[in-house]
């Protein structure tokens, strides 16, 4: 099962990122992974949290523009060339990556990365077919 990512629209204004982080923290929600992408005017914050639905609702309540997207969490062997091996396998399976970012935490010695791909569910099957270690929502949220 793909995992849920929360995306928040942020203007490039002082304090916007910290107010989102503060809001999530006040709700007692724990951030598992995050990335920020930015342009001159605006940025988007992508979050993997332990309770996506509650984070989504809390942000909506505060009038943020929020979107919930499905992404895939994949285990990456923690040794030189580990990421390259995973990417090669994905390329062979014809999976097109929109963006990816890494987790802070590790799982049984392996690194973890979030992949945003087209057609998440198909991609996930292809990855499993290639022997990649794909994590379920439960595994990720309970890290």
């Amino acid at each position: 099962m793909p995992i849920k990512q929360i995306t928040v629209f942020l203007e490039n204004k002082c304090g916007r990122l910290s107010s989102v982080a503060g809001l999530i923290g006040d709700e007692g929600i724990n951030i598992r992974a995050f990335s920020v992408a930015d342009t001159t005017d605006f940025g988007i914050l992508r979050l993997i949290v332990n309770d996506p639905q509650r984070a989504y609702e809390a942000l909506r309540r505060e009038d943020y523009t929020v979107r919930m997207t499905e992404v895939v969490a994949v285990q990456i062997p923690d040794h030189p060339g580990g990421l390259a091996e995973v990417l090669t396998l994905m390329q062979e399976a014809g999976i097109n990556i929109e963006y990816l970012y890494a987790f802070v935490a590790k799982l049984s010695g392996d690194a973890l990365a979030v992949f945003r791909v087209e057609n998440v569910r198909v991609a996930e099957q292809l990855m499993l077919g290639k022997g990649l270690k794909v994590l379920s929502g439960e595994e990720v949220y309970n890290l």
Partner: protein
Amino acid sequence: MGYWNEECECMPPERLRSLQEKLLRNTVSRVYQEVPFYRHSFQKIGLKPEDIQTLDDLGKLPFTTKDDLRDNYPYGLFAVPLSEVIRLHASSGTTGKPTVVGYSRHDISVWAEVMARALTCCGASHDSKIQNAYGYGLFTGGLGVHYGAELIGASVIPVSGGHTKRQIMIMKDFRSTILTCTPSYALHLAEVMEELGVSKEDLSLEGGLFGAEPWSLGLRGQIEARLGIKALDIYGISEVLGPGVAVECPAKEGLHIWGDHFLAEIVDPESGEQLPPGSYGELVITTLTKEALPMIRYRTRDITRILPDGPCSCGRTHPKIDRCQGRTDDMLVIRGVNVFPSQIEEVLFRISHTEPFYLIIVERRGTLDELEVWVEVSDLVFSDEIRKLETLERRIRQEIEVVLGISVRVKLVEPKTIERYEGKAKRIIDRRNL
């Protein structure tokens, strides 16, 4: 859908014209006798009341402007003694003294009559429950609608503007069938309803009359879809009467301006020359029946056009004006190009799903005017991919540039960044010191 006053509303055009000419002659001779301001302005150009015989003579009359009302503050243009005035309203007066308008008992009854015609256009009858969310007070909106609604015999809910959550509760519990307010407030109501989890199916609304500010067809579509109603445009200006001067009929092909009470012309805002039907320009109105404050060729500063003559499918015979495109004062001249907020609004709607919350900012860098448009990002168009947001930004920019013919910067901003007003929406910040 019926008429309020079929005999008047569907009067044969020839009869309407001869009525107008008779009323115009009366008005001109009355203002000449009763109002020193008009007498002097006629004498200055050597015009005698007898010179005005037919509608073709209208162009000979001098214009009246908002400044004339200010210069004669408060009662200088009244044509009846104050003992005959039963109501006074005033404009907001954002730039100095307000302008004061007065009504005789007959004026109030004419106002109720034209508002009754307007409300009937949007489906009101004595069975309707009309939630009137126009402000009550010195502003003409609230009481103007109120008297028309009472004349019809509808149940008026004089809720006035503001207190949005309470408005929604009343709309739901009182089962209001008609809503009257500014279009931007109607959209605000729809937004707050969605936040509160109130759906249009929870309401009994059927129609609405929205006016007091220009609004686009896109905004109409939004209001109709989100409130589940038929939304019609109503035009009015307090110096001439208030709401009800003109109203859109169910055919939605223009607004009938009630020819038995008002004469409409379109003039070039710069030169003041009369423009032929079909050309956009400034709407100029002459009152035909006003007693307390008759107006001769009043410059409304509203930009519209007179639609070509011809029978309207609704059966009404009164002349039609188009929806207002903006105000001559809202018109921004940017690098020599005339820009109206409504043009930008139309683009934002065309790019589907974009919420109509936007702000136009004009600045002068060096000698060059720069136009920036802030657009709020709604959940509908938001994406987790930068590429898609940049594409959206670019598309808005390109389409605005095509429409205006000048370059523009588009900035996506967070929801609720742009201030919501419960009355008229503020769409422009002009930071140039012109």
